[in-house]
């Protein structure tokens, strides 16, 4: 019997490249289950765009879909180009925290400001994983990494709060320890127009877990136990945990619609 999500995957390129215990498989599963729940029997109407980093390999080449795999940080503007030319397609960006919120941070903020009609799935593994576990824009304060051996002296970026403030239609953060809420957030985001941002905090057993001496199961429990619901009004201190929940849920017109409205002017 085939796995129910097999039709969405290029089985010829499996198994994937991810380390044992990596959280990216949980993210991929949540995304594909959300797509299946939306009634898409295949990915013909989707274009996946990604940049550089482990998470950028989630769609490319594993999904049986059109995928553009471009430079580090540049998935969001590439996706905007696709969407403006082919507004009928569902354009989804998948990338890591360094890719989306670090080197691509300016593009992220402006895409949210424009309410560009994309779903951006940011997998936050707390570090630059592919390059060896260096500190990233979302690394908790105090966490030791390969370039902060004495602990991260900086504060992390609250990407979800920034994107919500910039005007995105939908913003949520969950961890992969919250499988169902994460899938529900993606399901909801897929049904909306405008800019949609879902952050999935995920374990990196190789680059973070190893350093913290946490095997993947313990890492998952740590993320679950250190999550604070946004609805509880709680604000986790940097390094102490992850705020989870919905940061924005609006229904403003998206960029594709407002650009299309210019046609025939002049």
């Amino acid at each position: 019997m085939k796995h129910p999500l097999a039709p969405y995957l290029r089985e010829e390129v499996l198994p994937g490249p991810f380390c044992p215990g990596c959280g990216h498989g949980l993210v991929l599963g949540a995304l594909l289950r959300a797509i299946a729940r939306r009634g898409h029997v295949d990915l013909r109407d989707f274009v996946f765009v990604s940049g550089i980093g482990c998470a950028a390999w989630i769609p490319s080449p594993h999904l049986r879909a059109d995928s553009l795999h471009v430079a580090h940080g540049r998935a969001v503007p590439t996706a905007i180009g696709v969407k403006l030319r082919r507004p009928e397609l569902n354009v989804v960006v998948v990338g890591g925290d360094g890719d989306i919120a670090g080197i691509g941070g300016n593009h992220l903020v402006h895409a949210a400001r424009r309410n560009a009609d994309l779903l951006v799935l940011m997998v936050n593994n707390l570090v630059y994983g592919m390059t060896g576990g260096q500190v990233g824009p979302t690394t908790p304060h105090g966490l030791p990494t390969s370039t902060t051996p004495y602990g991260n002296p900086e504060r992390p970026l609250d990407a979800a709060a920034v994107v919500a403030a910039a005007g995105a239609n939908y913003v949520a953060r969950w961890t992969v320890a919250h499988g169902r809420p994460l899938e529900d957030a993606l399901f909801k985001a897929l049904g909306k127009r405008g800019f949609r941002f879902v952050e999935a905090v995920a374990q990196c057993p190789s680059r973070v877990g190893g350093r913290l001496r946490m095997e993947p199961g313990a890492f998952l429990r740590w993320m679950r136990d250190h999550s604070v619901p946004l609805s509880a009004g709680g604000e986790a201190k940097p390094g102490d945990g992850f705020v989870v929940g919905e940061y924005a849920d609006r229904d403003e017109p998206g960029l594709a619609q407002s650009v299309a409205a210019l046609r025939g002017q002049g």
Partner: protein
Amino acid sequence: MRPGRHFLSGNTALAEGALAAGVDFYAGYPITPSSEIMEHLARELPRRGGTFLQAEDEIASIFMLIGASWAGARALTATSGPGFSLMQEGLGIAIMTETPLVVVDVMRLGPGTGQASKAGQGDLMQARWGRHGDQHLVVYAPSSAQDCFDLGVRAVNTAERLRVPVVVLSDELVAHTWEEVVVPEVVERAERPLGPGLPFHSDDPRLPPPMPPLGQGHGVLMTGSTHDGRGVRFTSDPAVHRALVTRLADKVRLNAEDLAVVEEHGVEDAHVGMVAYGSAARAALAARDLLSREGLRLGVVVLKTLWPLPEGPIRALAERARAILVPELSLGQLVLDVERIAAGRCPVVGLPKVGGGVPLFPSEIAARAREVAG
């Protein structure tokens, strides 16, 4: 713009050439001395059903072009030195992914932010070699408003036909000079290769592989990393990398003859030869007129393709002339190629000028030509 005679600046002529060639997508960031191209297309594209977007920076601009091009658009952007530097990243990805698009660089003075709206020709080597890695693309250079229109059309068609990014290397003097432009009755529109076959493989390296459009169930796999004919990433196979990089370079190099646009003025009986492009070529042609009254015959090769460099006309000139003079509004970049191509057949003399906004004057080119002629 209707066929016939028009009075246009180089920048407006370039924007009109792009429209005539079917450009329907522009994303850019304002920068002098290129902004008129953007402003013209901001007005014209929406009412023709096209798409215009002002991006947050030049990096975003070129990646928006890459996305739009894969989605089927004929895409163009315009910038100048500092923005062109930022676009090198996207140009490298466009070369590797065989994405048709056009970047206009209206040269100003650098390095750094230099002088913003003053003419220079310092970006020649950057246009050719600005990306990391082994790569080739196509560079055209207009020297008049008519060239801006014609090469605007040609750049779009070359990009589509060969699946290669094309740079149009204009300069501030060409961009802001108003001249007559004749718009032809019929403007050619070349189409990108479609049809069956692997999207990143071609048995004949001169021919680009077919480019499948998005959203039609082709399962397009596009990556800026090393890939095989299907588009599947291979990041540690020497044979796959060698084959890909060689084919991409050969696609440009082996088409050099078809890509060459050159004007030759009096090269058959020249005493002194000259090789120039852009605004420097206009000064060279004016110097030729000045000297012809004195009986000194100047043969001028005006290069309108700067890469791949049309070597034949330069070699032929080196065989005939006593010496070749290379006037450039820079410290001298084209002169290095002319020396290489002349290969000792005749002396090659550079005439570099860091103008700081002051152009090359016909009188100074003529004076140097008299000295060289002896």
